[in-house]
């Protein structure tokens, strides 16, 4: 019964010996990769069924334009999710921002870029105000952003009614039409032109993605946002200015929402109050599908893009297959859930494999 086993000498040094880096799960268990695989598989399936799926101008261009806008929307939500908050007013902040862009073009005669700046500033301001209220009062972000949503839901139409006839700004500054319809094909380096499938508005999305990726993966502020989300009490005690981070996250969210509003307005042509009406669900869907936690502390910038793309591809594919409204939503939901369950199975299987090999 008494068995004093001899210590196998080297064992004590396990934590640092590095013989087996015993790392976390390998790269192929990664959720983003799963999404990418799903997107590729679905695109292949749709492409086989309907070769028109790869029509650059008529299918891919609008698809990417849509994805570009909704990705920014998802990013706007992701930023607040990173601190464990929610922004129910994304759509309305988009409308608010877009109003200022329209106002700038229509009334102030601003050039394209200045209008965009005005729009972003307005978004940032309203976001920062929201964040400030949450940080100061400690009231649940759900409640505060819901109230903000109501306030803007009333305010934006009032502003439009006060400033316009048709409840929309139809003035278009130079460059807007080009921005809407031009693609990389219009940008040429000598004889080599880009693909006509990639819309020009995607530049905003790429910028937003790159900026946020830098913020979250490289900078101090990004890390502090995540830790604020992971555990506010510990973050405060570790010297992170949690209050300021809350304000920052909401201001960023407002800015991104405004950017999305601008992109949506560019996409359809006018600046009107109904912009952003149905941003709320896609914003959550894209972010959460991509791997951002609703509880805060973890984000995936690329995931937001992939999540949004997945939904976009399914929708587009079903549209192309000519699925009517009476079945579209049913298929959309089923494909989504099936695809995710399939991915889930993959994760579980690969996790088991890792455990077995340990």
């Amino acid at each position, binding site marked *: 019964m008494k068995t004093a086993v001899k210590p196998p000498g080297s064992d004590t040094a396990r934590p640092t010996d590095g013989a087996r880096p015993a790392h976390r799960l390998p790269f192929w268990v990664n959720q983003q990769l799963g999404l990418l695989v799903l997107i590729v598989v679905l695109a292949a399936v749709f492409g086989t069924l309907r070769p028109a799926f790869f029509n650059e101008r008529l299918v891919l261009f609008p698809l990417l334009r849509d994805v570009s806008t909704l990705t920014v929307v998802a990013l706007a939500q992701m930023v607040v999710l990173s601190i464990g908050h929610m922004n129910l007013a994304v759509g309305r902040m988009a409308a608010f921002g877009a109003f200022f862009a329209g106002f700038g073009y229509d009334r102030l005669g601003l050039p394209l870029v200045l209008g965009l700046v005005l729009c972003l500033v307005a978004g940032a301001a309203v976001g920062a105000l929201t964040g400030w*209220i949450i940080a100061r009062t400690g009231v649940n972000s759900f409640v505060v952003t*819901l109230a903000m949503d109501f306030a803007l839901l009333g305010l934006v139409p009032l502003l439009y009614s006060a400033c316009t006839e048709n409840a929309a700004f139809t003035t278009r500054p130079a460059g807007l039409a080009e921005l809407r319809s031009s693609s990389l094909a219009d940008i040429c380096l000598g004889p080599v032109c880009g693909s006509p499938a990639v819309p020009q508005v995607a530049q905003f999305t790429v910028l937003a993605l790159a900026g946020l990726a830098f913020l979250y993966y490289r900078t101090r502020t990004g890390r502090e946002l995540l830790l*604020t989300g992971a555990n506010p*009490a510990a973050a405060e005690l570790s010297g992170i200015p949690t209050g300021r981070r809350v304000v920052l996250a909401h201001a960023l969210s407002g800015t991104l929402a405004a950017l999305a509003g601008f992109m949506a307005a560019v996409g359809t042509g006018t600046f009107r109050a109904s912009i952003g009406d149905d941003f709320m669900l896609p914003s959550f869907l894209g972010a959460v599908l991509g791997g951002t936690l609703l509880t805060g502390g973890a984000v995936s910038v690329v995931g937001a893009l992939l999540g949004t793309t997945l939904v976009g591809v399914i929708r587009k594919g079903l549209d192309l297959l000519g699925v009517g409204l*009476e079945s579209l939503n049913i298929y959309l939901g089923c494909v989504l*859930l099936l695809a995710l369950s399939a991915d889930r199975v993959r994760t579980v299987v690969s996790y088991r494999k890792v455990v077995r090999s340990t």
Partner: protein
Amino acid sequence: MTTLRNQGAAALPALRRFSRSTTMTLLCVVVAGYVGLGIASSGSFLEGPSVRTFLQYLATPVLIGLAQMVALCVGQLNLAVGALGGFSACLMGVLMADHGVPAGPAIVIGVAAATLIGLLTGIFIVATQINGFIVTLGTMTILLGAQYRLSGTRTIDGYSDTLRDLGRSAPLNIPLVFLTALATAALLAAFMYRTVAGRRLLAAGGNPVAARLSGISTDRQIVLAHTVSGLLVGIAAAVATASLPGVNRSVGGDWLLPSFAAPIIGGVALTGGSVAVLGTVLAAFVMRLIDSARAQFSLDPSWVNFLIGVVVLGTVVGGRIHQTRIERKITAPGGTSSAQPRGAARPAAALPSTKGAR
């Protein structure tokens, strides 16, 4: 302008809940708002028919609020509330109008279908471990499609007059549907506070790990919560079918946000582990008061939304400032409270700026 201020008075305290005893505050708000409206309408608001109309439309918000509350109490979100309600309402309508099923069985089938779908949703969430948010979003999409399949764009109204009479009947000007909602709330309260199953549900929401370690299957609780949530939505659908002029694809379209607003205003935490049946009911009252005020004072909806938002935000900020001032007054003239001023609020108040935000 006085009218506007009066309507503000109804909403204002409504939202002072955030600070402390939410239910009490809500109760005061309801009473004050009701009296306020009574005075503003020179009494007509307190007369039979008005009371009846007031209560008639309270049933649905109460029921869907409770349905959401049950999901929230295990830390889940149910985005399919509206779609599920709309679907089962249309199912009941179609069964009665197109298939000649008598009202009783049709209602039972509809409610059972909603419960079953809730059950399946729960099982799916547990089996695949996919985020409940995404799963209910998926089921929502599917159900929206199914609802459209059932009803198309028409309004189904060819069903039994007995059912409608029940839906409209109001002994002593208290509508039957409202009594149904109240009875459901009472049963739910008894379930949550008194039964072992209800306590398990709460335990799993309050601390899933602890619950698991205490032999409570969190998976089972999630399934149960979604099932009960489905059941409550089914009841809401039955109430809607009975009291609406007919059912069509728009039924349930407006349920999602109110379903969250009622429990959260009523004091339920998004993180799970808390219930507030009375709070939810009262919060629904408050929201209904705002509706009535809108009709009473012929307000432009934009202004109403704007004012609600601003008043809530103002109350949140004002309430917090007020509270800090009170606290300061109590503790400032030192020495009076040396005998253990420990209270419930202590640990939570340690980090005021971030706590409530999660």
